[in-house]
């Protein structure tokens, strides 16, 4: 069991080096890959219940006050995760466990607990990460979840799933260009990035839209950690921008002053407001929104809603070509990431979202 951050880094570095050698010698990993899940948190470690869903866990402190060892138990199975809470709002959960087992845990961890969520990176954010690295692959996943088959036109796509791995970035760029040219969805759900310095591979990481980062290859764990911190910085910057737009009235001489700005969503094609609202506010995953409809007309409806993931309220106006979302003071901005990213994945890959200053992503 590790007891300090230095020991923890040594453990991860040893794993990636062993895996690299094993891949070169035997063509397979010796151990499970090092993975990091970024978790969006609005609570302290003490607020996490010791059991939830099918899981129970123990949290063991280390010499580093921000680093904990999480021993997760489900029946007789046990896995170990390493929780780094250095960034108060964005925790890092490292592990060297079987991917499926960790995915199942993370899913329950982020779904069952109020105030804890995964990241929801729209494809533009994944694209932005590619600028500093060699892009050697991606996954695309689009599934029309709102409109029925009979409501789609001849040119509409109901589902597209694609995964490309390449040695260099040329095939990756070529395929994206081809998809864009032919109006196919390019909603990336992951991107594979190669970090090479002086011909040496520092890491080959795959970043998923939900904040999971897997080390496929690597020699330097600090580079991976630094990369994860960069993702957190980008997400955090967008979060600040979003939360600065929270709307509220405050008292001013002789009346009130209005603060904040609504988010305006622009669909790439006209939508049925009834069908969209039915899907958005039925309280189910992935949107996880609840609402009542009021002020309804032929081509306009207004929703007084609640983010069932946090208990925060929101308001929304829905029109065939646009939607407006109003976040109240103190509401968690992750609902905007979740809403926008899932509209991309399940309704409209070409959807845009803006605030006063233009496009957010």
């Amino acid at each position, binding site marked *: 069991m590790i007891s300090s951050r230095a020991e923890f880094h040594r453990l991860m570095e040893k794993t990636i080096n062993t895996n690299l050698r094993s891949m070169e010698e035997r063509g397979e990993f010796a151990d499970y890959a090092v993975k990091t899940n970024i978790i969006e948190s609005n609570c302290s470690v003490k607020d996490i219940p010791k059991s939830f869903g099918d899981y129970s866990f123990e949290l063991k402190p280390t010499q580093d006050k921000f680093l904990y060892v999480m021993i997760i138990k489900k029946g007789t199975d046990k896995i170990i995760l390493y929780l780094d809470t250095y960034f108060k709002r964005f925790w890092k959960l490292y592990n060297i466990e079987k991917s499926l087992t960790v995915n199942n845990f993370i899913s329950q961890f982020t779904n069952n607990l109020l105030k804890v969520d995964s990241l929801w990176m729209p494809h533009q954010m994944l694209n932005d990460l590619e600028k500093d690295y060699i892009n050697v692959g991606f996954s695309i996943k689009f599934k029309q979840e709102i409109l029925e088959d009979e409501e789609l036109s001849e040119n509409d796509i109901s589902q597209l799933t694609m995964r490309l791995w390449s040695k260099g970035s040329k095939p990756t760029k070529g395929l994206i260009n081809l998809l864009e040219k032919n109006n196919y969805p390019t909603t990336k759900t992951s991107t594979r990035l190669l970090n090479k310095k002086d011909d040496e591979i520092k890491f080959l990481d795959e970043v998923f839209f939900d904040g999971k980062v897997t080390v496929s290859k690597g020699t330097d764990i600090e580079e991976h950690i630094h990369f994860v911190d960069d993702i957190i910085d980008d997400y955090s910057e967008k979060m600040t921008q979003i939360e600065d737009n929270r709307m509220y009235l405050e008292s001013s001489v002789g009346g009130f002053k209005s603060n904040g700005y609504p988010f305006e969503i622009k669909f790439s094609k006209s939508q049925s407001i009834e069908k969209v609202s039915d899907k958005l506010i039925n309280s189910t995953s992935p949107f996880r929104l609840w609402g009542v409809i009021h002020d309804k007309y032929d081509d306009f409806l207004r929703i007084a809603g609640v983010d069932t993931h946090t208990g925060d309220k929101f308001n929304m106006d829905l029109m065939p070509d646009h939607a407006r979302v109003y976040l109240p003071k103190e509401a968690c901005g992750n609902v905007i990431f979740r809403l926008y990213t899932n509209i991309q994945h399940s309704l409209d890959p070409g959807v845009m979202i803006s605030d*006063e200053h233009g496009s957010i992503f």
Partner: protein
Amino acid sequence: MSTEASFDHLDVINSVLSLAFNLESYPNHLYKAGYHISRIEPQFNVNGTLNPEYQKISTRNLVEKGIDIPKEEMEFDVGIFGKENIESLKDRLAEKGIKYPQVVIDEFIQKRYGDDFKDPVLRELFSEPVKINSKPLLIIKFVEDSPFKKIAPFIFNTLMARSVSRRTTFTSRELTEESLGEIWDHLDKDLQKSLNGKIRKFLKHCKSHELKDYLSNREDAWTIEINEHWKSRKKFSDDCNHLMRNLSQKILFDFGFEEENELE
């Protein structure tokens, strides 16, 4: 989209405010011309009556600020009116020699009467009718004289927010405060009291009608219980929608329409 059916005082305020936001889904004339909102006066006080019908407005009120009426005459850059109001007031304004640019906001927005704008940007922006395709922004949600139908959605989502965050017991005053948001602390005590009374009556109505399976109370200590399963939450929203549809005038009378009028 026609907004005539429900275009009330609050809609006019929200419409004018919306013009100062940079939106594609609503005209942004004032934003484009470089204006921003510095103060909102939701209560337009004319001779002691708040937000009166336009017939009660004297011409003097249209050249003076609603709240802190100054002695000297004020010069307005623009007056923005709902369609019916402008048609009723334009002749009276003209007779009194009041010439500020008068803009109508309805299915279209356009300068209709009065002098030209001094600001060439505003002159250009308001010269042609621009179609309004949606309702204005929701900036002020409701005021004390809003009908229950306008208030109800914000009570319902406050109940759900409490259920989700497991703050299931509350007083009617706490619920009123949360439904109103941050402006609650800035309302005078009498207004807080009357709003609280209105919401308490509404809660009683909800409890004895469509929300009877979710709400319970002992005096003014209320409890909301909604199962966490998505189907239960969906059923709650269906029941809320059902309740709103049934908020007919008769029912309003049954549970406090008279008190509602007293607030005006």
